[in-house]
């Protein structure tokens, strides 16, 4: 009888846990985690678009959470990196900018959101630098705002480092300038602790890989 009672209690606990999972909390976290897994295993543009669709589905339900839109934008950023077609790049990044604005509307003054926005604006510029020079200023503005909101956000320095790395020396970029930015990014990545398991925590490995190219 005692075992029965134990079993029933356990079952009841399980059931209640199951029904609890119907609410936002753990299910949302679980879905976000599986989305991050899709990102971690992504190898090409298609994989990132798949992950983006996943986050879009979460965003459609979780209308108060900023992370799904943030990650959807992130996926589009990478889908654009991995696409050669300039028109497609433009479309992915245009969509990402809409998603990042959506995230911003849900979580205002968020350093992570402005850092990603800065990265996106810079990439939009790179599609056609001659006609989009003005985006360099806009990108710098977003990154500056991100730094004001949280100077310890390592992604800001990584994104800046990346931008400078790929900007020709003649235009104020180059490996030498990128090096110090990437070094400070790595120093900040070393001490950075995200608030929880699903908050943005990307970039450390890429920063190291890019720094290795600066030497």
């Amino acid at each position, binding site marked *: *009888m005692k*075992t*029965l009672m134990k*079993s*029933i209690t356990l*079952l009841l606990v*399980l*059931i209640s846990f*199951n029904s609890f999972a119907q609410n936002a909390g753990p*299910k949302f976290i679980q*879905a976000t985690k599986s989305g991050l897994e899709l990102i971690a295993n992504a190898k090409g543009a*298609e994989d990132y*678009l*798949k992950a983006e*669709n*996943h986050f*879009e*589905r*979460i965003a*459609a*339900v979780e209308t108060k959470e900023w992370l799904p839109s943030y990650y959807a934008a992130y996926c589009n950023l990478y889908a654009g990196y991995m696409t050669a077609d*300039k*028109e497609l790049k*433009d*479309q*992915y990044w245009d*969509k990402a900018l809409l998603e990042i604005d959506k995230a911003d509307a849900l979580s205002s003054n968020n350093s992570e959101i402005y850092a990603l926005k800065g990265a996106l604006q810079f990439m939009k510029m790179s*599609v*056609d630098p*001659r*006609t*989009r*020079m*003005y*985006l*360099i*200023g*806009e990108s*710098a*503005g977003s990154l500056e705002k991100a730094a004001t909101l949280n100077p310890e956000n390592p992604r800001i320095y990584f994104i800046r480092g990346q931008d400078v790395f790929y900007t*020709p*020396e*003649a*235009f*104020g970029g180059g490996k030498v300038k990128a090096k110090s930015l990437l070094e400070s990014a790595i120093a900040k990545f070393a001490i950075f602790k995200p608030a929880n398991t699903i908050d943005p925590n990307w970039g450390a490995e890429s920063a190291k890989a890019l720094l290795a190219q600066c030497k």
Partner: protein
Amino acid sequence: MQALKLTLLFLFSFTLAKTQTKISGVLKTTKGIKVANANISLKNSYDGASTDSTGRFAFTTTASGAVTLIYSALNFERDSVQINLDHGNLILNLVIKEAMNQLQTVSISAGSFIAGDGKKGAILSSLDIATIAGSRADIFAALQTLPGAQTSFSESGLFVRGGAASETKTYFDGMLVKSPFNATVPDQASRGRLSAFLFKGTSFSAGGYSAQYGQALSSALILESTDLPEKTTTGISLLSVGGGVDQNIRFKNSSITIGGYYYNLSPVYSIIKQHFDYVKAPESTGGNIQYKLKTSPTGMFKIYASYGRTKLALYRANIDTPATPNYFSNHNFNIYLNSTYKEYFGNSWKLESGIAYNKDKDSGLMTVNDYSRQDHLLEGKATVTKSFGQLSNFKFGTETFNTGRLESLNGLARAYNDQISSGFAETDLFLTQKIVVRLGLRGEYSSYLKKYNLAPRSSLGFKTSAHAQLSFAYGRFYQNPEDEYLVIKPTDFEHADHYILKYEINTPDRNFRIEGYYKDYNRLTKINNGNPDNSGSGYAKGFELFWRDKKSIRNADYWLSYSFLDTKRDFRDFPMMATPSFAAKHTVSVVYKHFIESLHTQFGGTYSFASGRPYVNPNNPVYLADKTQNFNSLSLNVSYLTHVLKQFSVLYLNINNVPGFKQVYGYQYSANGLNRQALVPAAKRDFLIGIMITIGDDTFVR
């Protein structure tokens, strides 16, 4: 006991494991093409899947009953279907409609050439305009490398598709600029007053333009000024011909820019031999102030004011009596003011309003005669745009100009003043994503001519494939006769009808366009025994090709333009129909730019060719039947990007006509027709060297 335990366990697990339904299927377009990477989802659920490269998808869900299945994909319209999950697995055949994709949406394009930053349909950027070799950052010289415009070095302005320079009008934020050129030396073109760096967008229309723009018979040059500068910066430019300083001050929602310049050509003229014998080489001073205020997230107020003064004096060879050359002096004074306000109301209304004032005064001595000329224009304009549907809009507005001239010769003065009032209405109707129709109407009344005109305008765009478009335009364009005739007496409006057919293919890296046109000119001003009337007429027809490629050569960008022009007109003092001296049959331009990263340097070259132009030979009984030799020009420029005192700087060198081609614009004959002299450039070769330093910014952007 054990059995009960098992039963209970079974019962619980049964309730726990809800029924799973598998939903699978395929997503296609209305034309049956499979759609990859689409998002299939259930409303109010995380459940869903992406379509694979064959448009297939499959996922399971624990949801039940009637639910909404949503499907969406990039460049397609989001759609949904109602499904019921209570009857087992579902296999769906979904069809999705193509959505308006900005890049693939048709646009109004006939006749126009758009250069702008971040603009749809832009072929060139403002930086492209500023860095064309030979143009030396002059907008008008830069546009001469585009199809439809003639290479003109002996007269200021743009000669478009057989039209005289006065038939091209310049608009600054929608407001007409009456005197857009600097002081003129006889038989030489002068630079535009407005710096290329003031504008973020340049739309050069060689015909068929919007009903918003009036008083232009052939062409409209529409300039759109920049918004707030990003940063507070100081720009210093030191050139072989002078220098300038400008200070940008950026506040949170506003900015002030103050600039000044001083140019003196005498040091350069002492090195480069000039065709004229200068008594005083051109010397100019000027300044401008700009204030921009973001009145709301969507509202913008701008004010631009400039002032300029130029002095020069020279002797020109006198073909009739070579011993006594002709004296010419000019003192030019120009003020310009432009203020505009733009705001959106609700989510579909836009108001644009502006006021502009221009005064341009020339005075001096021509041989022994004192002359003076003063032009003015005061304009007010308001336009309201209502957008509807996804892309369509309707706009209407009103505009009024107070314009005139006061001129005098040896104390004898004459003047005219005109109030031109106009109203216009126009709609851009997108029938589908692939078809757009623009219909417009413009009416004007001139108080001086005491006449009305009514000008219909239309333009049609049809997208033939993702990157290709076919366009057609028809429009009627009215213009008052030139000031020099109006000041004699009022006559009537001149008018032209434009018919344009264009085909273009645009991809992000390459552009191809071919455009053919026919223009019918009527009521052009003619001078009969010193008396102007409207008995002139003419035609122009031709076609143009343009090719630009930013991809094939790494770090290089080039474009080719070819224009074929067949035109004749009977106007001014022509005794008959003839091809005017400003019309070359064939015009070719090649612009090449190459950035060499390791040298931090951009090299540029511009080659222009124009077939011989007609000139009047009094010994030939046929009017304008002689032609000059072909025109060739090769200009090179080098921009070296560097840092001076840690501030971003550009070292700049431009050389015009590097090979020293002999260039003849025409001939001037002596009164008896026995002697002639060639009209030639001010100097065989010309160079400009300078450095531009930007303080307060370590990147190239200002």
